Structures are given as C-alpha cells and as structure tokens.
C-alpha cells in the first residue's frame, strides 16, 4: 500500500476467518438443541440443589462402623491397582519398544502400535464389563481390565519417549560394534528411564483411582461396596468410603513421590525419611 493512502476499511491485526465464525454459530445452535432434547431446565437444577443439600447433610458424620467391610474393599482395590500396574508396565515395555518407528521397521512398529491403540480405545470400566462377562465377578476381572488400560497408556507414552531420544548417543554406541539389544540397554533405555519411571508412577496413581470404580460393574474392589451403600441410601457409610478413597489416593501419591526420588534423584533411604529438599541439581544438567 502506498504511503498516505487511506485504507478503505479499518485494518485488522487479528483477522477472523469466516469458517471459524460459522463453526462457532453451529456449535451454539447445537448447544441449544441439546439442552431442549435432554429436558434440562433451571427449575430442575434448583430442585436438585435442595436435594443435594439434604443428601450431603445425611453424609455427616461419616460412619466407620462397618470397618471390616471398608478395609477389605480398600485392600482389594489396592491389590488390584498394584498387580495391574506391575503386569501392565511389564507388558507395555515390549509393545512400547516395538512401536518406536526410529528403531523398528514399519512391519514391526505398526502391529505393536495397533495393539496399544486397541488397549487404549475403551474406558477401563467398559473393558471391565467385558472381563466380568469372560472370567466372572471378582478382582481378576478388575486386574485384567486395568492391565489392558496400563498397556494402552504406558505403551503409547513409552513409544513417544523412545522416538524422541538423542540419536547421537545411540549412534556412538552402535559405532562400537554393539549388538542391537546392547544398543538398547546402553544407548536407548538410559535416555528414557526417568520418563518411564514418571509414566509408571502416574499409571499406578491412575490405576488406584480406577480400581475404586471397576467394582461398580462387579470387577472387585471398594467400588462394589460404594455402589451398594449408595443404593441402600447409607449416605454416612458412603462418606466414610469416600474419605477412605481420598486417603488411599494420597498414600499412593506419597509412594509415587518416593519412587521418583529414589530412581530419578538417586535419593538415599535416609534422605527419603528425613525429608529435606530434593537432591541437588547438577550444574550442567540440561534437561
């Protein structure tokens, strides 16, 4: 544009595309349509709030009288979570490795990726329903369901971590004449190890939460007890269960932190129990 010429329209620094405007309009229309379809009204929300107040009132004080039932459920949930995490991590390792396209030929990586994608495509509760049908009610179904979920999650993240390793380090190990599996052990795995510990502890955390839920469909753990308490309107027992689940998740979080400090920061047992800050950072650490 030549200097001094008046622009016909005020200039826009942030032009809005017409396609984006149409998309927003369609979204708004669908939102209103869905509201009318599902019989959502302000009146019902108001009624619901009053109802929720009564329901919350009955949750206090929590009733820990049936402690044996509570403990058994919690213990079973914990066992499901730990077993499923261990199995899932062990099984996710090979699939994650085989799926890495920078190390494996396409005919290996695609089938491995397919397995991982399938393992991730359903919510753990849906998978739990399938396993309850297959192996019957109880903890085994829950363990299998969460194992599948773990393979899906860790397998995917592990593959991505391997695909991001520094190829220079791998090249140097390869140049020493190391066989492929030794290159993996010395050139690849050290680079992804700390991230892998992160994935594993996150998955344990996620499995702990999910293991309190698969019980609702009969796959073992505290979820079954919780669901039964809801149906019998034992709201004081419900709140006792919810508080226990929160405690369980927090304990899991502490455990995860400890695992990370041991494996990633190389903390000693004494440092772990004394507390104190995280291990000192190396001056040249660039990550």
């Amino acid at each position, binding site marked *: 544009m030549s200097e001094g010429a008046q622009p016909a329209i005020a200039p826009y620094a942030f032009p809005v595309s017409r396609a984006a405007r149409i998309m927003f309009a369609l979204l708004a229309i669908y939102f209103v349509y869905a509201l009318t379809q599902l019989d959502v009204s302000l009146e019902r929300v108001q009624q619901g709030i009053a109802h929720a107040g009564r329901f919350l009132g009955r949750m206090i004080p929590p009733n820990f009288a049936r402690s044996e039932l509570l403990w058994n459920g919690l213990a079973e949930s914990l066992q499901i979570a730990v077993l499923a995490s261990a199995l899932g991590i062990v099984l996710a390792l090979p699939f994650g490795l085989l799926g890495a396209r920078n190390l494996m030929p396409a005919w290996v990586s695609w089938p491995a990726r397919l397995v991982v994608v399938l393992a991730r495509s359903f919510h753990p509760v849906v998978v739990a329903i399938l396993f309850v049908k297959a192996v019957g009610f109880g903890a085994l179904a829950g363990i299998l369901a969460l194992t599948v979920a773990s393979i899906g999650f860790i397998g995917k993240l592990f593959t991505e971590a391997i695909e991001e390793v*520094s190829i*220079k*380090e791998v*090249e*140097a*190990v*390869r*140049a*020493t*004449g*190391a*066989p492929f*599996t*030794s*290159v993996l*052990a*010395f*050139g690849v795995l*050290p*680079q992804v*190890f*700390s991230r892998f510990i992160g994935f594993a502890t996150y998955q344990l955390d996620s499995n702990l939460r999910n293991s309190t839920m698969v019980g609702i469909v009969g796959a073992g753990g505290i979820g079954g007890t919780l669901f039964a308490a809801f149906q019998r309107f034992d709201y004081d027992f419900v709140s006792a269960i919810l508080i226990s689940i929160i405690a369980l998740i927090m304990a899991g979080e502490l455990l995860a932190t400890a695992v990370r400090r041991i494996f990633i920061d190389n903390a000693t047992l004494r440092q772990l129990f004394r507390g104190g800050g995280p291990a000192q950072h*190396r*001056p*040249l*650490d*660039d990550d």
Partner: protein
Amino acid sequence: MSDALIIRRLSKAYVPGKPVLHDIDVEIAAEGITTIIGPSGTGKSTLIRCINRLVEPSAGEILFDGQDLARASGVALRHARRRIGMVFQEYNLVERLTVMENLLCGRLGYVSPWRAWRRKFPPIDIERALALLDTVGLAGFANRRADALSGGQRQRVGIARAVMQQPRLMLADEPTSSLDPKTSVEIMELLAGVARSHRIPVLINMHDVALARRFADRILGMSGGRIVFDGPPQRLSDTTLKQIYGGEDWLH
C-alpha cells in the same frame, strides 16, 4: 600393529545425482596421524563416517583388515566396527550413564547382550577402564554421570571409550571443534598418544589448520568432495590452503 586402510573410488550421494564424495582414492598407512582439512560441507565427515558405515557409501571399496567394509553387513559389520574406535565432535556420550558405564560401552561389541543387560562385564575390562581413566586424567571420575562433566572432560571420556575397544583404527570427527584452544591441544596430545602407544592409524577431521599442522604426520586437503592435497604438513603452503578453502583474506 595394525593394517593399512585402503579406500578405492569411494563415492557418496545423499541425493541421487548430487555426490558429496567423488571417487575418493586414498591409502592410509598402518600407523600415524592423518588429518583431513577442508571447508564445511566438503564431505570430510561423510568420508570418516563411511569407513565405519554410520553413513552408507554409494559406491567404492574400503579395504581394512582383509575385508571390504563397504560391503560388510550383520555380524561381519559389527565385528569390523568393534575394531574401529570413533571420537565425535559433540562427544556423544550417553549423558545419563556414569563415566564407567560410558567406557564399558566400548566393550559392548565383545560382551554378550545377556551380560551387558545385567551390567556383568569381565573384571579385566573394569580394570582397564580404571587404568584408562587414570591415563586420560580422570582418575576418580568413574561414578560421575556424564552430564556432570565439562566439555574437555567429556571428550577425554569419548577417547577412553574408543580406546576401550582396543581399536586397530581410530576415527575422530572434529574432536576439538567444541573445545577451547588449550583443551584442544590436550585432546590432540591424547589422540597422538593413542596413535603411538597402540601403533594404529588415526584419522582426524579438523577445522584448525595450525593444530592439524602441529600433530599430523600427513594432511589430506579436501575441497568439493575431492582430495586436492595430500602430503606432509611441511608441504602445506598458503597457495595450497587458498586452493582448499578459496579466498585468501583469512590467511593473514
């Protein structure tokens, strides 16, 4: 004592029709330091990397130890590689492993994967690694993680890793380009020491002409993917340097 390295009509084109190396013919004696100088992008790295096949040559022969490295594959290639030590410009240490583990990487070609996974290296390898750390001036650093070292220290580990292979040929791809002048000289002295004590040929890519002159027994000058100078450092004149790098303002 080692063998000579004979390269015949070696060519490499990353993109078909645009060769980076044009029919390289060169024979490297069984001992001594040969440095390759030349402008960036002229194929020095490619030449070095073709020898241990980190880069696949397009055509030609690389004869070493009674074998054509250009055609080796599978186990034969691995066995050839374990006799060829390589030092990299950016050290290429496995950052998250300790110095000792990085040194033992040099033994991976000799140790079975089963032992490697369990970190069960023969005691003699560990003794040699400790002795080597002493030689390169890093005694007491065995359990440091590689990412806690300075550049010069890393390159010492890089050299020690290559020596751990008990190589019969040593390659170095711009080993001093990331280092300060004093450390560069120390690293070159280490490489010269390896060439002498192991009596093996050492082939080094360099940008620093003065350093190349000081340490080399023989200098190869490359330009445009061809060797345009081949001779002892004394014969490397300003005229030749002009021919290799082009221009002359930088000489004075």
